[in-house]
């Protein structure tokens, strides 16, 4: 079956095409088309993974374009890394498809929604299966398109329209870096194929400066897509999209593509210590910075969004300090528990008639039991409480950072881990415990369409970490097949102890501040000061970008437009007026009569011949 891996992205593509043409007829039934397609993709992905574990491998290419004597090919291949990604993407996508059937069923455009989900799943799976970095880029842009369409799904809300644009544009900035990076790579190695590129790099055929430049340029793409500082600004706004979309695209899959990119290009990054340092620092700063914003936010989705940014920073940090397996392991576990948290938030929002402010929640534990329990499991997992999935992967990251030897990075990572546990349980205690503080009593637990995906994801949030524990590094052995990376760092016992202390400490602090006394984050934030104000305003980065980039660009555009109208065109009009006064006699002849123009043409032709005679006379 592994040679049929290409079908995995094709199923959702077919769903997209069917819904494009028949969606209006199918309406609510569109969900079944999407769910069926994703179920098929998931089953096939499981088979492919097992065959890959069994040692089977397959790749296929076809010529795509030829220029000069270069040929670019497209195709697909199954590697250990993408076999795992296939599972993550198809499983989360399938569950989101199921969840959305209930979540979106009141929306008249549910068929459009499912068609976009299909297009997204196709693109994301295509990205994962790509055997070369150009093909990855192609699908990379397509997932960006789907993100744009889905963030702007409720296009009639001005905030959604603005957020969609912001998401596309901000990631586009990184994408240009990525495009330039892979083009430089192509010019340096003559290929986009991973294997060939790495062979060139490892053989020392590309000079060190160029490797560093290429790696940094490629990393820009990851910074945009995985919402790393300073291009993180789009992801919190992207929460304007429907919540299942946030779970699928903006938590589990697309935003992780940046991490995945660094993962697949890892031999290149490893070849440049400068690039690795930059990667590590960007990751660490992002993790800390986004985590700190999450401490004070009160919108359930935005807290999760900043948490996602922070966790992606964690993964990037791991990759930058040599923790290849740790970073990708965290990508996998995070996909499950963050999708769980987002869908849980979706379940709450749905029950509360689309209210997202945690200060208006409270007491959901008794009203929505399944949602509450699964949400708590997700929160425990992300906080890093053993033996849940997040514990194992986060511990791997801390081990890699410690091994990396930069104590500053390690401290940032530890503080971030602490903040993570704190803000997640600040959210949990505020929203789920205490008294209900909203104005609309929730309608109780949601239907099975919504709760079953939560339960499935909760199981994975608990168990997904067991693939890579000190009792057996199965994932590590699998991922490192065919790679020549150094040994991966494994944490010692003290580190595990520290992880547990951090997690429990954060949870404990949240309990004393919000859980025990039932205190709610203040509604009136007008007189907060200092750091708190800075955090509430997200470090004023949006304002800064408006002032430094957006407004000046528009101003320059306006200035040039005046120049265009006044100077460039002014000269033309001046010449035109001068000519017209002399040409008024001729202008009268422009009367739309064919005959006149025939005559003019003939005269013109004669003039040409006459001129030819002049030329002859010239040298006659």
């Amino acid at each position: 079956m592994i040679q049929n891996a290409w079908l995995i992205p094709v199923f959702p593509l077919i769903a997209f095409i069917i819904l494009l043409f028949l969606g209006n007829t199918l309406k609510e039934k569109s969900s079944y088309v999407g769910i069926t397609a994703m179920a098929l993709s998931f089953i096939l992905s499981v088979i492919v993974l097992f065959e890959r574990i069994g040692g089977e491998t397959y790749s296929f290419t076809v010529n795509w374009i030829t220029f000069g004597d270069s040929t670019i090919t497209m195709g697909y291949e199954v590697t250990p890394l993408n076999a795992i990604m296939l599972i993550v993407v198809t499983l989360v996508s399938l569950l989101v498809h199921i969840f959305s059937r209930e979540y979106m069923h009141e929306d008249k455009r549910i068929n459009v929604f499912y068609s976009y989900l299909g297009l997204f799943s196709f693109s994301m799976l295509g990205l994962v299966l790509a055997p070369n970095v150009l093909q990855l880029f192609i699908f990379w842009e397509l997932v960006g398109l789907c993100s744009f369409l889905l963030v702007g799904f409720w296009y009639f809300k001005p905030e959604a329209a603005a957020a969609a644009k912001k998401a596309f544009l901000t990631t586009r900035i990184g994408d240009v870096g990525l495009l330039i990076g892979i083009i430089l790579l192509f010019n340096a190695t003559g290929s986009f194929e991973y294997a060939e590129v790495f062979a060139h790099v490892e053989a020392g055929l590309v000079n060190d400066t160029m490797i560093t430049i290429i790696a940094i340029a490629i990393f820009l793409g990851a910074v945009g897509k995985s919402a790393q500082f300073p291009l993180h600004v789009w992801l919190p706004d992207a929460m304007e999209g429907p919540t299942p979309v946030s779970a699928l695209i903006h938590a589990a899959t697309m935003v992780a593509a940046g991490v995945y990119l660094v993962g697949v290009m890892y031999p290149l990054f490893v070849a440049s210590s400068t690039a690795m340092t930059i990667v590590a620092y960007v990751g660490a700063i992002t993790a800390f910075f986004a985590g700190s914003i999450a401490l004070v936010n009160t919108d359930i989705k935005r807290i999760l969004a900043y948490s996602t940014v922070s966790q992606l920073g964690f993964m990037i940090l791991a990759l930058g300090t040599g923790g290849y397996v740790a970073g990708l392991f965290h990508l996998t576990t995070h996909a499950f528990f963050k999708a769980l948290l987002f869908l849980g938030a979706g379940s709450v929002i749905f029950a509360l008639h689309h209210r997202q402010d945690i200060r208006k929640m409270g007491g959901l534990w008794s009203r929505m039991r399944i949602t509450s329990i699964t949400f708590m499991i997700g929160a425990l997992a992300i906080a890093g409480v053993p033996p849940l999935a997040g514990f194992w992967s986060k511990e791997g990251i801390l081990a890699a950072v410690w091994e990396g030897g930069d104590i500053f990075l390690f401290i940032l990572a530890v503080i971030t881990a602490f903040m993570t546990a704190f803000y997640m349980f600040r959210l949990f205690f505020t929203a789920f415990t205490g008294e209900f503080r909203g104005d609309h009593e929730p309608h109780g637990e949601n239907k099975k369409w919504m709760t079953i995906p939560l339960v499935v994801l909760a199981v994975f949030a608990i168990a997904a970490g067991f693939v890579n524990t000190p009792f057996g590094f199965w994932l590590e052995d699998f991922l490192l097949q065919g790679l020549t990376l150094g040994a991966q760092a494994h944490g010692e016992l003290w580190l595990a102890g520290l992880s547990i202390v951090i997690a429990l400490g954060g949870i404990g602090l949240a309990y004393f501040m919000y859980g025990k006394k039932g205190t709610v984050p203040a509604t009136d934030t007008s007189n907060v000061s200092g750091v708190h104000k800075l955090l509430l305003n997200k470090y004023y980065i949006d304002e800064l970008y408006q002032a430094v980039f957006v407004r000046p660009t528009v101003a320059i555009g306006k200035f040039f437009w005046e120049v265009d109208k006044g100077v460039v065109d002014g000269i033309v009009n001046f010449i035109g007026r001068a000519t017209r006064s002399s040409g008024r006699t001729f202008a009268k002849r422009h009367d739309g009569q064919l005959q006149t123009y025939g005559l003019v043409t003939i005269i013109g032709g004669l003039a040409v011949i006459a001129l030819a005679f002049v030329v002859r006379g010239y040298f006659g």
Partner: protein
Amino acid sequence: MMSNILSVLVFLPLAGALLILTIPKEHKNVIRSIATATAIVALLISLVIWGMFDRGASGLQFAQTVPWIELFFLQINYEIGIDGLSMPLLVLTTVVTTLAIFASFTIQTRVKEFYVWTMVLLTGMLGVFVALDMFLFFLFFELTLIPMFFIIGIWGGKEKIYASFKFLIYTGLGSAVMFLTFITIFYQGFLASGQTQLTFSIIELAQIFANPANPEILTSGLRAGLFLALFIAFAVKLPIFPFHTWLPNAHVEAPTAASMILAGVLLKMGGYGLIRVGIGIFPDQAQRFALLIAILGLVNIIYGALLALVQTDLKRLVAYSSISHMGIVLIGIASFTASGMQGAIFQLVSHGFISALLFFMVGAIYERTKTRTISELGGLSKTVPILAGFTIAAAMASVGLPGLSGFVSELLAFIGVFGASAEILPAAKTIGVIAGLGIILTAAYLLWALQRTTFGPMDEKYSGLPDARPMEYIPMIGLLGFSILIGVYPNILSDVINITVIDILSKIGG
């Protein structure tokens, strides 16, 4: 028929025009049918030629030379033929024109004249792409001017008279420069050839200029001057800053169908002429000016994009986007690499489809809302979801989204620029990075436009507007379809272009 197939293709629309002339003007539907049928037949013929085109052969195909005007020392031939450069443009011309005709059925006034001019225009455009004799080339080039002048001037918008005269005078001046340059080329070529007859053949002139019998005559200064003169002549058409100001007026005032042809095909004659005649006869000189060409390309990209960003009129925004996108052609050429050159040709073709689609969408929206002012639109996804969907697709194609043709041309041009040799194009990587900023700006102005037109709250006065009519699907699906086809499988195009590009580059320094 097969040996004359190019001539049949070129003159078929002219025959269609003559046929229309015989129909009384009241029979609008008959006239429309004849025009449509003629265009479709031309399209089919061009596809037959596409199918028969030998992808593995270098040099000219379907060539035909008939002595035409022999006057004293003048030897003007009816010399036509195509290679990998003209082949795609030929198909582009028939496709865009046919689909533009479908978009023109809303025209109700002076229908007969409109289609006569459109048919003449089609012959002119096809002629430009097949002519290999400079005299013939010039005639066809001029033949496109007059119909477009009338189409803008008669069927245009509020400021049609100003726009049409500006178009005529501007491109006419370009033609004058071209004419004088051609004359000088003939004359100098004649002197240098040592022959007794004055040839007008582009191919022969290229050979003479490459290996003159009398090298003292063709000094490098003269050649450089002639190349620059040609460059300016074609710069007006492409258009290249600062010769671009006719374009926004002409595009905005022209009726939808004419905007489609203008942006879709006419601009391409500038790029085509630059490669065919400019680089064809003066390959070494062209390469010497690589940096200048690249800088002008950058100016086009950035300046066009910045101006598009601040436009308040949707159609004018699309017009400035054309200026920006034609900059890609220039930087592709300036790299003097196989991929860059191919990227330039890809961009000519790709932009032809995409800009025609954009203009069609703007026209369809205007027809319904009676406004093109961006701030007065909004929420089109609600009122006219299908039109809005195609508008988003067209904008994405223009942004250079992979899977659509614009991406491939940008990719090729960028590979070319970043891979250009330092002797030919100094600071190539800086140029590439600045062009990259242009990509971001392109996304900025198009996405911002989408945010304010297709997205956002709907103005109540637009509720109940009719969505796409069956007849409108033809141009929309056709143009988007070609863009997707090239975007998904660019080999279909590079297959035809590659050998010609290698030929063009092999002439340099040889």
